[in-house]
């Protein structure tokens, strides 16, 4: 195995505590097969590198204009103007930006480089049974890279988790299966037609992969992002309960609340904002939904409890 295998990284987040047991570091990988309208990590959708520009943070210092080889940054009347169409995401500007307004998503990092960052918090993983979680985007789109990251962390005796939407070929799962202690597996909607409208793909492959994954003996935690008005109706929750209760080996189901905090990222990436204008579900709604699923014999919890 080539140790310097490189992957496309969005972010590495330390002190991540809701993505598996203990204190963890979550590595976000770039690229996703789905197009969920409520996506809260839009920087993870495209597999190509992207420059993100947070206009609010810009201090109009003009440093980016000096280094940009493609004329993507300009100063007009003392104000910085960014032209997405000129940018090829080389990232040179992010090194000189004084306002921390420019970020490159999709930096290439070798597995060794990523693991070096992850291992900075080793004492916290050892103390709490934590480790590394791969998320995204859809990490399994870079299955070989994932396998390498997981192998490096696992051989140090630490816990590994993969957070997946499930919409990838089964072969990708097979690559990481023996190296993954826990799968965090998203279930979004039981009606495949609606699933397709909301996420850009039907749910058949996702469900199929989940059954195979369960059969293979993997530890699985189901995560349901609850989007008010989209997938929170009783009929869908009951259908979800029926489906999941028919699969042996699901350890836990967690209801995650929708929130629209990511809306500004769409603007900063120059993407059309697709996020629903709906409030975050209340603690009570989350608990009620969890209660409803518990009736199906599923060990369900609200993501806020």
């Amino acid at each position, binding site marked *: 195995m080539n140790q310097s295998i490189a992957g496309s990284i969005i972010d590495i987040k330390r002190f991540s505590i*809701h993505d598996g047991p203990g204190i963890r570091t979550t590595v976000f990988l770039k690229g996703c097969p789905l197009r969920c309208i409520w996506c809260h990590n839009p920087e993870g959708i495209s597999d190509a590198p992207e420059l993100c520009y947070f206009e609010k943070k810009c201090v109009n210092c003009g440093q980016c204009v000096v280094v940009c080889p493609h004329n993507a940054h300009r100063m007009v009347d003392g104000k910085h103007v960014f032209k997405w169409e000129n940018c090829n995401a080389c990232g040179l500007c992010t090194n000189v930006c004084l306002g921390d307004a420019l970020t490159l998503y999709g930096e290439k990092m070798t597995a060794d480089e990523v693991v070096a960052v992850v291992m900075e918090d080793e004492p916290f993983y050892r103390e709490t049974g934590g480790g590394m979680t791969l998320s995204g985007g859809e990490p399994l789109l870079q299955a070989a890279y994932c396998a390498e990251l997981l192998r490096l962390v696992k051989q140090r005796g630490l816990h590994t988790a993969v957070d997946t939407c499930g919409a990838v070929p089964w072969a990708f799962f097979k690559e990481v299966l023996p190296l993954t202690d826990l799968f965090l597996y998203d279930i979004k909607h039981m009606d495949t037609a609606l699933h397709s409208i909301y996420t850009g793909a039907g749910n058949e492959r996702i469900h199929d992969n989940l059954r195979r994954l369960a059969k293979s003996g993997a530890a699985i935690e189901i995560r349901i992002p609850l989007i008010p008005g989209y997938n929170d109706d009783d009929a869908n929750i009951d259908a979800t309960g029926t489906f999941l209760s028919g699969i042996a080996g699901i350890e836990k189901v967690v209801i995650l609340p929708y929130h629209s905090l990511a809306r500004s990222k769409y603007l900063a990436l120059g993407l059309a904002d697709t996020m629903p204008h709906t409030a975050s579900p209340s603690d009570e709604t989350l608990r009620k939904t969890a209660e409803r699923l518990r009736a199906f014999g599923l060990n369900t919890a609200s993501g*806020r409890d």
Partner: protein
Amino acid sequence: MLWNTFYENREHLNRQYIDPHWIEDSGLDPEALKTGANELIRRMQGQPKQLIKAKVFDYILRNGQIDVDPADWFHDRIRHEHILGNLRLQWWRHIDEDVLADMHSLERKAWSLGAFFAGADFSHTSPDWNNLLDLGITGLLERIREKRDEKLNVGTLTDDEAVFYEASAIVYEAVILFINRLAVWAEKNAKADIAHGGRMLLCAKSLRNLAVRPPATMHEALQLGIIYYELQEMEGEPIRSHGGFDRLYDRFYEKDIASGLFTVEQEKELLRFFYTKLNGNRFSAGRPFYLGGLMPSGKDAVNPLSFVVLDTYSELGLPYIKIHIRVHPDLSDKLIEKALDCIRNGKNSIVFMNDETVIPALMGTGVSQTEAREYAPIGCYEPAVMGLEVPCTFNVFINMAKAVELTLYDGIDPLTGIQFGTPGESSEYNSFEAFYAAFQKQLEWMVSTAMATTLEYEKHYMEINPSPLFSGTMTDCVEKGRDAYAGGARYNNSSVVFGCLGSAVDSHIAIRKFIFERQEISLHELAEVLRSDWTGSELLRMKIRNDRDKWGNNQPKADAMARELMDFAASLVANQPNNRGGVFKTGLFTIDQHVNCGLKTGATPDGRKARTPLSKNLSAVTAMDRQGVTALIQSASQIDFTRFPDGTVLDVMLHPSAVQGKDGLNAMLGLVRTFFRKGGFAMQYNVLDADTLRKAQEFPEEYANLQVRVCGWNAYFTTLGKPEQDEFIHQAENL
């Protein structure tokens, strides 16, 4: 009703100290009391101050009005009119203005520039609670008399010792008299008031017992505790720890329960009254005690009372009750989790202390391991051996960022133009090493000047604050016949506390990188830029701020600089002899002085603007801890905390979303355990989000109950000044 009356009396108890009531028939009116005391002081002029103090103490307890509140379970009120406090002030002023005038004015100048303060410290004590509860007031008095007679019989009693024993005996006899006075009025009240179902008779009985023997029940033990608080503080030394509350009081608690005297619920009711009274007393820096920790035997001290105390604290949420949790590897996670649960629910007047670091740190000052295991965190997080040590944990405070500033300007304070510190030759610093050496010289001058001030004051401690009551609890003082402030305790230590570490480290890193490595600007130019508060140099300022080499980010260069700086600072202080037969201990914290010193410090090389807050305790400069809490802990762990026996603390601020659910609790526990496994000293939490704080600033009346941990103590957020509020908001915005 006898029981379950706490909540109907809660407001009333709080008012005891705000709007006090006195039984007018019980003693002299305040003016007559003051006149009588002044007459006594005048008559005694020329006599040893110990005796004057003891006689005045006796006079007040004999003649002052008292109060016995029929709604209360505990009685302690004496209308002392601050007579002893004012007498001490007068004695202190004489030393300041007549004896040490030059030194005092230099020290005032140093503090007006935000450089350092130095002097006496009588406000960090803990009496020997073991002796108090084991022997009672009568036992302590008996011991004082026995020791005096012993020395008298063998002919070794010196004049000084005779004065000590006489003063202490007067004071302890006065306490017995005072307890009996309280009992008399409790008995009178009992006849007049049957609404409280015989509570006054129970109180009178406990008081009568305490006047003749040590406490035997929880009610008696707590009653003695509260009386002792009132009287030691009247004497002049604020009590800054109630010791290990669980290990001290559990024997009474369990005996009460076993004998069927009281139920668990009734014991809780007593604790509700007790803590509410302590809280109501409103000592602004809080009322500390600790739970857990190692016993002298090395075993875990946790007992049933530990949990009962935390339950009561959680129920009441009192901001001025401060709990130290002494953590060690065998301490049950259950106790820590209970404390963490309080914290995330807004009751965060809690500090975690690491026995595994604190105990070796104290041993480094010459204390044995068995003794060190009885340490109590004094005040905020300054450990001292209860009953054996008079620690004076806040003699000297040094603003390390000011040392950087004085180095840049050759000893002339840039904001005021005042010459201070040692002169330097900044135009000749051609390398970072040369600059750093000049900084070391500046810091060394500040430390030695400040220490010299404290050393001089120590020669006059007995002229300012003899302490016959406090000394009487301490075995070594009584054995030696010497006051606690005359070096009578087994350990009589002093302290130098360093502050603003993050600002100092980041400034050095910036100078090394931008001046000497990249040569973007000369040292002289930087000094001029800072003098103008970065006018016209905003790009440079942002470049420096954006640089990743900053303290608190697990960056090897900054962490190494911090370690080097603190090793050097500790070497200037550690175990230097003081003038009381003890040594200086090094501390590393700012209390709330990072804001105050910031106001007096000009722009600093780390990109900070003039007059804005400096870094707090072990924290990164605000907004510069970009890597989050785990990186901050990794950085902090680089410092060898066993070199800081005077204490230090890491502040961890978390967003409410990070502490939700079981995962959140586990994570909080994991942070404490990991920091302590890596040698951490102490840690405290704030769980805050910026939106809530902004709303509280705008609509204070709706957020009157919002508590924040300021620094070793709690405050209601809405009562803080605007700069302190803004600083909290700024920090929370970066979570």
